């Protein structure tokens, strides 16, 4: 992880609100984070915590209306993506920021050959002619470990297995050598052995190509194995942020702690019941004015119900949005991190 390097992506105070007929839903609330070149940032949280919406909001992949994306800024390559026109965003998507989505079964267009779908961004962004694009497509398929690449270009998605399709998706995302790869639960729809293969592949590719990766998942095991830094999201906010080891060793947010507790252990006596976090994640009809986890939190006290906790810096590149101080075993008495400090990237991580 390149310490102190300029972040390749810097998100400040991002908000996404869905205006629907039955009222508005605040899906992303004041999310700030930065991504350094070459690092792998894990984003965890349960379904509906706003992980995917955050990443898609950055780059204009959320249909608007109904969504409204606002914020202080999303800096990427010297420009503010929030102010960029649709055309400018299109030039970035697929060229400088690649995407891999969750379900490889449905994420590829069933009526076009895999070769056509890989060559599309090449021809669009890199202005390659057909022959060059073809050569590059073969290269890409070989890169992601698809045997007999030359011949398989002519195959349709339904002729590939799930794992192979996800490799194709990765090949498409990597086609134009992006600086950032956003992987939205890329292994969730795959069985465990294929998942391991894809993780292995990502490790390799990152070492080879050196792009920064944002890896969205709800699987803490995957995060532990692959990430440099982790964002924990809940209710559309970042509730904890830390380098991966720090997070697993010293979780500072009750939600993270509860999440870690829910992982069943394969060793020792088997528990009678699986650990769960009681309750449901909230659907935010308005910008949060109290801690969104308070209803499910065992440490909740009065302040949590009256104030939305800001992110407190707890050292070691670690911050948490909680009023309860686990080191002191009591309410926290500490000024919150200034937004500017966050925006500059939490440089002393690791």
């Amino acid at each position, binding site marked *: 992880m390149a310490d102190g390097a300029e972040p390749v992506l810097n998100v400040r105070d991002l908000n996404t609100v869905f205006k629907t007929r039955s009222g508005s839903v605040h899906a992303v609330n004041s999310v700030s984070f930065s991504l350094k070149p070459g690092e792998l940032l894990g984003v965890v949280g349960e379904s509906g915590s706003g992980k995917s919406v955050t990443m898609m909001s950055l*780059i204009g*992949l959320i249909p608007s209306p109904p969504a409204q994306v606002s914020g202080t800024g999303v800096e990427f390559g010297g420009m503010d993506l929030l102010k960029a026109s649709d055309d400018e*965003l*299109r*030039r*970035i*998507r*697929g*060229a400088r920021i*690649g*995407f891999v*989505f969750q*379900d490889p079964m*449905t*994420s*590829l*267009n*069933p*009526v*076009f*050959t895999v070769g056509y779908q890989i060559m*599309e*961004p090449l021809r*669009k*962004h890199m202005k390659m002619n057909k022959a060059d694009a073809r050569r590059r497509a073969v290269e890409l398929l070989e890169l992601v470990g698809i045997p007999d690449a030359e011949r398989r270009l002519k195959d*349709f998605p*339904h002729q590939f297995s799930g794992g192979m399709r996800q490799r194709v*998706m990765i090949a*498409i*995302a990597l086609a134009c050598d992006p600086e950032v790869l956003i992987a939205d639960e890329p292994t969730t729809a795959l069985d465990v052995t294929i998942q391991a293969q894809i993780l292995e592949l990502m490790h390799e590719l990152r070492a080879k190509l050196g792009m920064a990766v944002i890896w969205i998942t709800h699987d803490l095991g995957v995060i532990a194995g692959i990430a440099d830094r982790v964002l924990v999201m809940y209710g559309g906010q970042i509730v904890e942020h830390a380098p991966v080891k720090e997070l697993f060793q010293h979780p500072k947010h009750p939600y993270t702690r509860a999440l870690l507790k829910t992982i069943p252990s394969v060793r020792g006596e088997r528990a009678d019941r699986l650990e769960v976090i009681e309750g449901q994640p909230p659907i935010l009809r308005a910008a949060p004015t109290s801690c969104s986890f308070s209803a499910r939190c065992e440490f909740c006290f009065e302040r949590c119900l009256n104030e939305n906790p800001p992110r407190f810096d707890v050292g070691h590149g670690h911050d948490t949005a909680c009023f309860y101080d686990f080191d002191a075993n009591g309410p926290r008495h500490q000024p919150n991190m200034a937004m500017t400090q966050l925006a500059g990237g939490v440089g002393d991580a690791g």
Partner: protein
Amino acid sequence: MLHFTIRRLLLAIPTLLFISLVIFLLLDLAPGDPMASIPLTVPPEVKEKMREALGLGEPVHIRFLNWLYQFFVVEPQVAFDHLFGTNFAEGKQRIISFQSRSPVMSVVAERMPQTLWVVGLSYIFATLIAVPIGIISAYRQYSWFDQIGTFISMIGFSIPTFFSGVLLIVVFSVILGWFPSIYDTTHEVTDWSSFVYQMKQMAMPVFVLTLYNAAQVSRFMRASMLDNLNQDYVRTARAKGLSEKVVVLVHVLRNSMIPVVTVIALGVPTIFGGAIITEQVFQVNGLGQMLITAIYASDAPMVQTLTFIFAVLIVLFNLIADILYGILDPRIRYD
């Protein structure tokens, strides 16, 4: 695919033979007498002689086999002779209409152009209009365009052509006098003004049928587009940075066309069937009108032949729809 096509064509033979038998038996069972319109002053025994002269004295199976022989052997020979100047069919009995005593196929050949012009043109217009409307309606769902499109197709769907046709005649022929209310088949296009007249007399029947067909196809197109616009692969296409035009007109459209092409192909036989009611309203003497008059006159050979031709077309276009389906959707393989 070739293997599939040949197999389906071979399977169509017994199907069509069975259909022709059913049509024949139904017509035979139906009440009605080709001699009903002969004046009452003609003595019954003379009528009986006339019936025999029409071949009605033979038993059912002989008449059916005769018709089969005439339809599948004699008529193709006649067509062949006509094209190449040979004379295979000389002296052979053709299928003769009870009404006009002329060969059924010659009458069909006379009527076909009007039907193809009016009904065929309206079908082409309908498709050309409906597909873009469906695409835009789906892409801008609930917009003004979509609302108006929905409203108009509701009208097209729910108002029968015999009403909209008559309404048009009242407004544009009777009150405004812009278009003729009766289609003149004998009109020949020789110069610009006669061409304009031809356009004028086609305008109303074509419009009525276009509205009706476009309403159906645009609804289908819209629904199919909406199904596909929310698919994951559309998000992938956008994530690749493709322009909206490419996303919608290449990625979504190709997938959405699959069911719509089937609907359009299956609708083609109805062109040949003629829009029976519309042709009647505008006095276009096409195939549809001919079928109606043949039914009134108990003209069994005519009805039998026409209905069978429609059956052949329906079977054929079913096959074409299946083949198109296989071409458009790579997941479908018939072999």
